[in-house]
């Protein structure tokens, strides 16, 4: 049985964590993602940019209490890719168990 290749954009711990957090909320700001993932600011910023460049995230930069605020939400493409990724790892796990 041939397995679907795992999406390289999502098959990374931090990027997968970001997308998993965003899949069940409308949007979240940078500090929320920082707090929940435990990543460094620099790394988080790099991975958000990669997800944005892949078309998986929509990023809005605004100001909150006079400070820059980055707000992220999952795009339709991001959601579809996440669902395909979950399906693929389920198939991998299913074959490992059988």
């Amino acid at each position, binding site marked *: 049985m041939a397995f679907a290749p795992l999406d390289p954009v999502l098959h*990374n*711990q931090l990027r997968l964590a970001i997308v998993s957090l965003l899949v*069940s909320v409308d949007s979240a700001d940078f500090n929320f993602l920082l707090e929940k993932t*435990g990543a460094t600011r620099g790394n988080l910023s790099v991975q958000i940019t990669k997800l944005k460049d892949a078309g998986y995230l929509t990023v809005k930069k605004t100001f909150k*209490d006079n400070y820059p605020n980055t707000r992220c939400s999952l795009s339709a493409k991001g959601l579809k890719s996440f669902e395909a990724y979950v399906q693929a790892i389920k198939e991998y796990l299913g074959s490992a168990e059988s």
Partner: protein
Amino acid sequence: MEQELTPSESLKLIETMIGQAKSSFSRMSFYFLMWGVLLLAAMVTTYMMRDAGDAWAHGAAWGVAGALGGIISSIYGFRQGKKEQVANPMDRVVGWIWGAFVITMLLMMFAFAGTGRDPGAAITLLTAMPTFLTGQVMRFRPLIFGGLLFWLSGMVMFYSGNDTVIVSAYCIAMVFGYIVPGILLKRQEDGLRTA
């Protein structure tokens, strides 16, 4: 958080992150505590002034409590909205539920005022619904219990002709349906913030 993942690690990470995001509700305890105290005070004031024969005996305390609560809720909601790090769809659902409740309650008050009947029992019954639904959405049992209590108190108020019974039923519902769940919810929210 840089290394490659095995499929089982991926699945575990997804489950953990989704669980964390889902538990990120807005702080709602403030609303239950504030409205609980205000409405309890309004009911007690109305009861104590029942023989006064002026506006206080005819709902002025409810008007003051409603206006004060509305202003405080708006200011608090506006400030909280600016602070919130995450927009959770469950918050939106809870907001719609309470918005629909307020609209229905105002229309009922208007309709009851037109017929000269006391809307207390009907509004208490109506209060059960958003309280119960909020408890279910948040999976927070004290609010689910609070909703059930408002239904029970509403029925007692509806069928009782005794002022003391009516006031007691309302006050019990307000204490155990709003204030106690509000305190327990606040504890939970403070725990989540420091965790």
